[in-house]
């Protein structure tokens, strides 16, 4: 034993992360150095001490029964014709990889959709007026979403069409929405929001999800030992569950969050650890669900709390966020972004984080260990997301007592301000940014109150100023240099006139790099995209929100299709998706619903099907024939971006817009043919 311990110690010392290769971000490097100096271990260090399991990462380790785990690594001399790899039960590499793959879809879809359900439940209490803290804030959005759930927004009184009472609409929307998770009959309502040909494809392929929960349950059933053993049939269910996420749970979450908290509109803010302030109470909010954080934002701005903070010697309260909760409160309130997924521990390492309030998803358990080294209170708030360490405070949040809970949390943070150690070090680095884009605000900004229309975007795609649209999203992954792939992919795209829609940690990475400023267009974009950005006054990279807000990208793509001139389905668009630094199961679910929605989607880091080449080929090639969209994998960020551009060019050619557009001069009969 002693010997083993000795080796481990030596290894640990020898294998600390090198800040210069761990991240491209100077703030992250500074904080990593500081952590190492203070002897605080972080994910960066563990990434160099612990290797990923080679077989697991290939997707070919089966541990679905206790006869295994059965490990089927790809042989060095792999030959498809002679591949006879099998698990004990005979499951092939394809079956194992497909089962693992769709279990990831299930995990991701469950995460998004359960988040959506929580929001729906809060929405219900707001509709029932059971809570003071939540109200129907955006009536317009409610009226806009209601018809998609089959809820009428008008009614006829004595032959006259009148607006229906908003409370009535809210109640019915709440009921219909909640029903989407478990209804006994029919299919998910929002699927019909997709372009009609897309819906028909889903119908033809038999992948219309019946309800949100059921498809996830069915994945767990099908992947149980000895059930579905045909990778194509397994993937059919994977597609169905992913659609229940993208066009179901996620989209409902986004819509209901907009109704409760307001639809985002462009606003300015800042990003990176430098947004924390030494002389203020720093509350860092981390996770994914805005239900609590919305109230914390409200409470932290009250005079009572600010006065209380001043009493304790602080100049005020500085809120900032990490991961998608950050994106949610950024998009709606301009609360600055503290950092990406990989910076969560480092926010505490500053020594200035008085409280880190976490809800659900992407919260590293090591936060508690890091918090222990500083004065930081780590507060878990969600009943389904607690931690075993004893320094973690749990204040369970309940929408019926939202204000009190939030006050308790903010107060706790303020009280903790006086407990700070002398050694506070906040990196200076931060970047200005513009965020708050969404389907509605993009439309407005493409022509104003009177002429706002996606056609303005389409026209510039058709005329070639904009080559295409890239949706770049996703996590950070400690196995690659922090933010490097994000930034290189995005820069390569905009350099080639591809406008980028971003969400999640990619959005935060771009914000930190200054790519979310309008000024970046001139510096990084090709001439066509730069000109359009200059005309509209937008950054070349548009921040559309959190990871459930990928549903906004689906709807934006649908709007582009509707605006005309670029085919009649999402798969016809010169567009491509990407997750350069993905790590979570949610990313796989997102990727899958993008593919099934007709988008060519490239992932970076690793691809969890490499151990089963036949199955991988199904994802990369055959899915295109079925859905018009397909998966791809490319680790090298530049090649990654170029693959996307090549696909965009292919689509431009198919649309016949690969050549310079002629200036058509119209006489009256030409004009008559134009729609008005």
């Amino acid at each position, binding site marked *: 034993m002693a010997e083993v311990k000795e080796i481990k110690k030596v290894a640990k010392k020898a294998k600390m992360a090198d800040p210069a290769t761990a991240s491209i971000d100077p703030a992250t490097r500074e904080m990593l150095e500081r952590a190492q100096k203070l002897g605080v271990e972080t994910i960066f260090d563990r990434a160099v001490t612990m290797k990923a399991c080679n077989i697991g990462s290939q997707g070919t380790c089966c541990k679905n029964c206790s006869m295994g785990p059965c490990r089927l690594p790809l042989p060095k001399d792999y030959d498809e014709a002679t591949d006879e790899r099998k698990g004990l039960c005979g499951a092939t590499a394809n079956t194992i990889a497909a089962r693992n793959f769709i279990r990831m879809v299930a995990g991701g879809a469950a995460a998004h959709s359960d988040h959506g359900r929580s929001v729906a439940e809060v929405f219900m209490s707001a509709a029932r007026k059971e809570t003071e803290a939540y109200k129907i804030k955006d009536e317009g959005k409610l009226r806009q979403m209601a018809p998609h759930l089959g809820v009428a927004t008008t009614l006829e009184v004595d032959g006259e069409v009148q607006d229906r009472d908003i409370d009535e609409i809210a109640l019915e929307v709440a009921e219909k929405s909640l029903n989407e998770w478990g209804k006994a009959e029919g299919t998910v309502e929002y699927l019909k929001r997709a372009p009609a040909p897309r819906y028909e494809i889903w119908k033809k392929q038999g992948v219309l999800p019946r309800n949100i929960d059921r498809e996830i349950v069915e994945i767990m059933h099908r992947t149980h030992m000895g059930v579905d053993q045909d990778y194509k049939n397994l993937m059919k269910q994977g597609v169905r569950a992913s659609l229940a996420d993208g066009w179901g749970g996620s989209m409902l979450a986004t819509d209901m969050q907009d109704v409760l908290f307001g639809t985002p509109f*462009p*606003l*300015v803010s800042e990003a990176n650890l430098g947004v924390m302030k030494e002389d203020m109470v720093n509350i860092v909010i981390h996770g994914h669900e805005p239900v609590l954080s919305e109230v914390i934002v409200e409470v932290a701005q009250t005079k009572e709390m600010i006065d209380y903070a001043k009493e304790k010697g602080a100049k005020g309260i500085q809120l900032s966020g990490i991961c998608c909760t950050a994106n949610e409160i950024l998009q709606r309130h301009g609360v600055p972004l503290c950092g990406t997924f990989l910076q969560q521990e480092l926010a505490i390492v500053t020594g200035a984080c008085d409280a880190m309030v976490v809800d659900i998803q992407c919260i590293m358990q090591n936060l508690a260990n890091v918090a222990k080294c500083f004065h930081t209170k780590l507060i878990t708030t969600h009943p389904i997301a607690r931690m075993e360490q004893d320094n973690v405070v749990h204040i369970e949040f309940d929408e019926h007592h939202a204000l009190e809970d939030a006050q308790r949390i903010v107060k706790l943070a303020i009280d903790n301000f006086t407990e700070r150690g002398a050694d506070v070090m906040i990196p200076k680095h931060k970047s*200005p*940014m*513009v965020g708050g884009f969404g389907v509605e605000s993009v439309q*407005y*900004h*493409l*022509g*104003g*109150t*009177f*002429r*706002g229309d996606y*056609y*303005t*975007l*389409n*026209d*510039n795609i058709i*005329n070639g*100023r904009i080559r295409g649209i890239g949706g770049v999203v996703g996590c950070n992954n400690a196995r690659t240099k922090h933010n490097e792939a994000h930034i290189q992919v995005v820069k390569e795209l905009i350099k080639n006139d591809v406008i980028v829609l971003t969400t999640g940690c990619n959005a935060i990475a771009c914000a930190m790099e200054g790519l979310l*400023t*309008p*000024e970046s267009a001139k510096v990084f974009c090709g001439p066509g995209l730069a*000109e*359009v950005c*200059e*005309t*509209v*006054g*937008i950054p070349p990279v548009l921040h559309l929100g959190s990871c459930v807000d990928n549903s906004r990208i689906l709807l934006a793509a649908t709007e582009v299709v509707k605006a005309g001139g670029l085919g009649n389905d999402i798969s016809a668009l010169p567009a491509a998706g990407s997750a350069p630094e993905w790590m979570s199961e949610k990313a796989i679910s997102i990727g899958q619903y993008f593919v099934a929605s007709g988008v060519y989607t490239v992932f970076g880091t690793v691809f969890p099907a490499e151990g089963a080449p036949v199955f991988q080929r199904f994802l990369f090639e055959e899915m295109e024939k079925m859905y018009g969209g397909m998966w791809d994998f490319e680790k090298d960020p530049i090649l990654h971006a170029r693959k996307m551009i090549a696909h965009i060019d292919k689509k431009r050619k198919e649309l016949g817009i690969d050549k310079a557009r002629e*200036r*058509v*001069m*119209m*006489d*009256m*009969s*030409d*004009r*008559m043919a*134009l*729609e*008005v």
Partner: protein
Amino acid sequence: MSKLVAFAAIQGGYNIVSKVEGDYKKALDTFNADTPVGFPNTAYYLPVIYSLLGIKVEKLEDMQKVLTFCRKLLPPHIKSRNHLPYLGPLLDAGMAALLAFEIKEGLRYLNEPDFYHVSEECDPENGKLWLGAAEDTVFRKRGVEFVDGSAPGFAAIVGAAPTPEIAKDIIEEYQKRSIYVFLAANHNGTSVSQQLVEAGVQVGWNTKIVPFGPDISSAIFALGFANRAAMAFGGVQPGDYKKMLMYNKNRIFAFVNALGDVGTEWGAAAAGCVNWGFPTLADTDIPEILPTGVCTYEHVIANVSHEEMVQKSVETRGLKVTISDIDIPCSFGPAYEGERVRGADLYTQMGGGKTQATELVKLAEMTDIEDGKVNVVGPDIGDIKEGDVLPLGIYVEVAGREMQADFEPILERQIHHLVNYIQGIMHMGQRDIAWIRVSKAAIDKGFTIKDIGVVLHAKFHQDFGAILDKVEVTLYTKKEDVDKLTKRARGEYKTRDERVDKMTDEDVEIFYSCTLCQSFAPSHVCAVSPERTGLCGAYNWMDCRASYQINPTGPNQPIEKGEVLDAKLGMFKGVNEFVAKASRGAITQYNFYSMVQEPMTTCGCCECIAAMLPSCNGVMTVSREYTGETPCGMKFTTLAGVMGGGASSPGFVGHSKYNITQRKFIVGDGGLLRMVWMPKILKDEIKERIEARGAEMGVPDLFDKIADETVGITEEEIMPFLEEKGHPALSMPPIIG
């Protein structure tokens, strides 16, 4: 740098809205809040505001709502760094500015009622240059040209050119392309309008060069004109701003030329125009906005030289125009149609009471004439001196395999506008009462009488190539030849008139459809029979037949009238079937000869609208020119608004002036004897024909029994007159079944 444009225009928007808010407050100090406001003789209130927001500004206090809207529309100012997107805000600020401009002009009509000259024509000698908002009569007449394509678009020119000559050159280029020119605003103390007057160019609606006003705010009249056209002819509903603006983008090809320094207020106005899809081209160095989308092509182009201004404008708007290339020394095109040749400018004239001038088109044998030959028999311009007059006989011989004698009058009628298209030449009248006036300017350019022949040959081929192959023109200028031609022509006219007059609906098996207006009034289908000419007055049965032969797939299609379902009301099976199909089921049947029961549909283009007057047991009709109130309680424009768009409205019907005295005119309801009221202007215009038709119907003094506005404008007011005169309608059976 769009950002600079946005920054300046948003600033401009704030300035404009604030100023107009001040003007409004001041007006409230002077006038009562319920003082009526608005532009003269229009049913569209302040038309931009009405069309986009659906708000009817009728009283001074109604302006408050609009100003509140403008204020709300104004976006935040643009920061210099890490700014928010500004394209949407820029367009909103522009819109706020334009809406405020319309309020400002509304206030001007209130504060200075005589500021604008309410007329189609300018009177610059008497200081009446500015025309302001077009009356509904003017816009109806002119607006049709925009929607049917005869006017390809308009150039809204603001500011002033460096010199009057440059202004004149630019405008002439537009005229050549038949593009209307709307003028507003000033620069360096002058304006293009004033420069044109200085350069001797005629301005006014008749020459398609319209001086709206001296300030940038008067540019709003151009947009009000466009939006009214979209409402009246395009069926766009007030308040449907999306459709209104898209209609303008895709149908009304207008653009802005900014001559002179573009300040914040011009910038705001230009940004506002982008909402309409109207781009701006400037002769100064302003930031450009080149990407496309809101406009069809570029949004703002700068540094355009004056020589290139017209070509570049037309290209930027994506407007295809054809310049008639006819080998004569003068410019030629529809733009010159309304030009006058006044006494001081006159070099010579033919006809008009001074001499005889006669026009005749005749069918000829292919072998007898030589195509393109123009003979001048007698003295030409070179042989006379200024002030002399000449007799003139225009004799056109036409041959072609498809040509027939019935087309002669149709071709002959073209002579009027074709001669008018020559710059500096004015043509009035027709047949044996033609009158041609030639200006000194035309003589200076080298005009000769022969050029009339050149024009007729070229245009006949261009417009009627499908029916004719050869055209030879002979121009007689010796008295004896002209007299001889006149004598022969009079005989021809008589035969023709008798043929048309005698032709009845019963005589023919084929009627013709006219769907020329259908893109504007989607369910309207005109059916034209010999005794019911088109309600626009432009097309009779013969014309439709000719048009069908010229263009077999065009808007005039033959309709087999088929079984007569009701001879009295004029319902035909074949017509019903056609109408149902052409209106896509919206209208399944109508009557030719009744306005009470299922009358024919009406588009916005009718010359007159008849309305039932139940307490007089009769009907009235009102023509477009009459802007006053009528006994049915509605002005013409209101009636047209209610009726237009292709609706069949029992109790109302649109018709042509000529139709009033045709034998089948509402004969199902009792015919012309039902007519109890007409505006004087219309009554006088067709006096002779009313008398003739009245006599035919046994009431020779019918003309004197019909009331007009001098008698009254309500049913109660005219009733005693009708009783006193013993109007036949009073003793007819009740008009409603």
